[in-house]
């Protein structure tokens, strides 16, 4: 009987948001306990898009398993591939040519811009403004076009391989990226003009979805979510990989701990990524784009771990090798999973409308959480 009328024994309303719901951007299922419009509890239910990626990887060779990881966090496919390639390179002790390193970093940062652009549009849509979504897509499409020319794909690029990148840059790459940068610089402040300064938007974001610094650390939040709470956690700064230690860029940190801080961190990160791309685009060294590697890769017996900063936070790749051509066990530490776990803490006591805004600021990609 309790089930039928959809209330629990305290008389609270239980509603299922998802797995098919416009706010969850995928097949996330939240069971929300409501008292009127006020949230008492949020319980995420996972598993709707679990594809056993970690198990699949155990039967794929070290060259093959990287392609599967594009399907985890599909908005930062390059960076996922990069993390896996780094881990294999660490195990094989492959020296990556300078050209490949620069290309990788440029691709990573372009991916980050594209991902944050899409997040901005989707976030605006979550709080009821439809127009930013289309403006964000205009910019993202031009990055996708650039990617398509060089990588042959627009979403799941599969461009990074152990030892470098799969193919050399398209001859037009530098020209197109420069054109994109100059175009993007005229549009980058549109975000502030259209949304950030809006009083309705400010009221919806300020002081909402508080995640204190202590909570952010104890829930294992990373990326812009944690940096919005004042935690220093940019892997590019604290554990630099590739050539990040030679580049000039700032780690964006906001101390507001609310939705607005997380929003501002991402907007400012776009500008930092743009700065990195600008530094590198004219200085791509000549040389090989891929190190000479054996046809069949075999990792020595042992455990290997690599970590990178994706658009959502820290992605860790942990490989246990028995010395064969396939990993014995592989584990991904995905940023979305930990960030989602903080949602209940953030949402308690706020209104239903704010829950959607908070989920927007967490920048959830469901296939990344479920894998």
């Amino acid at each position, binding site marked *: 009987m309790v089930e039928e009328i959809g209330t629990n024994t305290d008389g609270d309303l239980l509603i299922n948001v998802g797995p098919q719901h*416009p706010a969850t951007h995928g097949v996330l299922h939240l069971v929300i306990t409501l008292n009127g419009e006020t949230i008492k509890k949020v319980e995420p239910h996972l598993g709707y898009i679990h594809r056993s990626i970690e198990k699949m990887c155990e039967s794929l060779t070290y060259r093959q398993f990287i392609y599967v990881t594009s399907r985890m966090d599909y908005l930062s496919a390059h960076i996922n591939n990069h993390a896996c390639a780094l881990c294999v390179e660490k195990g094989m002790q492959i020296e990556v040519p300078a050209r490949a390193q620069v290309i990788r970093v440029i691709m990573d940062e372009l991916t980050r811009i594209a991902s944050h652009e899409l997040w901005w549009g989707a976030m605006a849509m979550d709080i009821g403004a439809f*127009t930013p979504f289309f403006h964000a897509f205009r910019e993202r499409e031009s990055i996708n076009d650039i990617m398509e020319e060089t990588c042959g794909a627009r979403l799941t690029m599969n461009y990074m391989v152990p030892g470098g990148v799969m193919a050399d840059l398209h001859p037009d790459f530098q020209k197109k990226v420069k054109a994109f940068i100059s175009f993007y610089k005229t549009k980058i402040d549109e975000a502030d003009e259209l949304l950030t300064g809006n009083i309705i938007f400010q009221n919806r974001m300020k002081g909402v979805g508080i995640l204190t610094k202590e909570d952010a650390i104890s829930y294992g939040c990373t990326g812009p979510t944690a940096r919005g709470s004042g935690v220093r956690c940019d892997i590019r700064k604290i554990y630099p990989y590739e050539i990040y230690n030679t580049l000039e860029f700032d780690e964006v940190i906001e101390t507001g701990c609310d939705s607005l801080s997380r929003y501002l961190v991402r907007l400012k990160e776009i500008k930092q990524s743009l700065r990195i791309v600008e530094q590198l685009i004219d200085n791509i060294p000549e040389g090989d784009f891929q190190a000479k590697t054996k046809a069949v890769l075999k990792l020595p017996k042992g455990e290997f771990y690599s970590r990178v900063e994706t658009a959502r936070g820290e992605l860790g790749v942990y490989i246990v090798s028995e010395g064969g051509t396939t990993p014995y066990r592989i584990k991904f530490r995905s940023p979305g999973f930990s960030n989602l776990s903080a949602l209940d803490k953030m949402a308690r006591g706020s209104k239903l*409308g704010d829950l959607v805004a908070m989920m927007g600021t967490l920048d959830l990609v469901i296939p990344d959480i479920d894998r």
Partner: protein
Amino acid sequence: MWSLSGITNWVDQWLNATFNPTLTLIIEMVIVGVCVISLFAVLGLVLVIMERKVSAWMQIRLGPNRVGPKGMLQSFADTLKLLVKEGFTPNGADKFLFNLAPYLAIIVAMLLMAPIAFAKDFHMWNLNIGVLYVSAVSSISVISILMAGWASNNKYSLMGAMRSGAQIVSYELSAGLAILTIVVLTGSLNLNDIIQSQANGWWIFKGHIPAIIAFVIFIIAVTAETNRAPFDLAEAESELTAGFHTEYSGMKFALFFLAEYVNVFIVCAIGATLFLGGWMPFHIGNWQSFNHVMDFIPSSIWFMGKTFFLIFLIMWFRWTFPRLRIDQLLNLEWKYLLPISMFNILLVTAVAILGWHF
């Protein structure tokens, strides 16, 4: 000057000459009914295509461009699709109320058409309490929304309906007080008298600051009352999927959709009548030749032009602003708009008594 009243007078005379008075009245009522229903259909089609084109323009898209010239027949195709869809009633729904709600919504919108003057001497009912009638009837629409939300047996619908109830009841007050401002200035509740009083200048120009404050409050309040963004909490897509009409499909959904657009038209028509002079042409002081040229534009064009300008304004809001939260929405009304409107009423009373308006 060409006018619609010529046609109505001619029809009336011809009918009176041909039939007896009772039959004439019945025939005229049937004609008016058919006109209202066709106006509804036309308005629905025009406003939907207008909204889609306006949103496309603001969102750097093309919008519908396949059906008919420049996609202008897209609404016909959509209507056809909705007509042939199954009218689905969910299990556990209160069948009677569930099916009644969309009709109630559309009937309210139809009733509201009655006192509006579409052109010079062209209205269905010259009601001496027109303003009061509009305020009273428009508040019935909340019943249809509550009915739809309750009868759907869906939690999203119920929440949407409850939000909508709180919202419409609150914003009625501000809208009513904004309308009262003009009533105070005019001294009449009759919409035709209000239009006539603006022959030498519209109230928004003549009424000093109180009229401008009232106009701004009126636009905000009616946007909220018609459940349009940024006050579309009743159907808040990202939170409540589609709010009170989540469970409706086919023609029953279309009726809600149509009622929403017609309501937008009606509130804009009321706004144009009260603040922008209804069908009165734009005159500047004693610029005789300019005023004469303005008089040549038919009164129906003036009315439609002003109404569609306001509709465009409301569409502009929708495609620009994010949505408010329910507590912020109610705060805005009870803490800001209502006190301002009350103060405004005092101000306008002083202005009217002292004769400071033009």
